[in-house]
C-alpha cells in the first residue's frame, strides 16, 4: 500500500516537473527530454496502480502490456522528434540554441 503511494506521488511530481520545463525552456533537445520525463511519470503511475505486494498474489498484467507498448512508442517518437529538430535547425538560418550564447554551448558540449 505504502509502495503504491510512494511511486504514485513520484510519478505525479515527475509529470509536473516535465510540464514546467516544457513550458519554460526553449531549447528543442530540452523539450524532448521534458516530454520523456513526463511520459515516464505517466508510466510510473500506471505501474503503481497494478502493484500488489510480494506474498499477496500476482500483479495485474494489463497495465504492464500498455506500458510496454508505450515505452516502445515513446522511443520511436523521440527519434522522430530529434531528427525533425536537427532538420529544422539545419534548414532555417536561425540558431535554435537560444539558452546561452552559441559559441559557449558549442565549446562546452565537446570539451
Amino acid at each position, binding site marked *: 500500500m505504502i509502495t503504491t503511494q510512494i511511486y504514485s506521488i513520484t510519478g505525479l511530481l515527475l509529470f509536473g516537473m516535465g510540464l514546467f520545463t516544457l513550458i519554460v525552456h526553449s531549447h528543442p533537445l530540452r523539450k524532448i527530454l521534458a516530454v520523456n520525463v513526463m511520459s515516464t511519470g505517466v508510466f510510473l503511475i500506471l505501474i503503481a496502480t497494478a502493484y500488489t505486494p*510480494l506474498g499477496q498474489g500476482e500483479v495485474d498484467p494489463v497495465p504492464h502490456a500498455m506500458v510496454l507498448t508505450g515505452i516502445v512508442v515513446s522511443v520511436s517518437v523521440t527519434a522522430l522528434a530529434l531528427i525533425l529538430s536537427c532538420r529544422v535547425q539545419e534548414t532555417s538560418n536561425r540558431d535554435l540554441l537560444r539558452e546561452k550564447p552559441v559559441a559557449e554551448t558549442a565549446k562546452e*558540449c*565537446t570539451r
Partner: protein
Amino acid sequence: MNWLHTFFALILLLTIGAGVIRILKGPTAADRMMTAQLFGTCGVAILLLLSTGMNNLVLLDIALVFALLATLATLTFIRRTWQGSGKRKHDYPL
C-alpha cells in the same frame, strides 16, 4: 536472511546517489560518461542482489541486458561526441 541482500542493495543505491555529484561537477565530459558507466555496473550488482532479495530469478536476464547495453552509450559518446573534428594527431586505427 533475505533482508541482508536487500540491505546491500540499499547501500549500493546510496553509492549511485553519491556518484551523481560527480556528474554534476565533472570537469570534463568523459568524467560524466564514466560515471554513467559506473551506474551500469552498480545497476548490475543491485539486480543480482535483488534477485535473491525478491526471490525472482528472471532478474539475472535483466542484469545480462544491462551489462550488454550500458556500454553502448559510452561507445557512442567516444565515437560521436568526444572526438574532435575528425582530424587526429596520431594515426591509431580506431
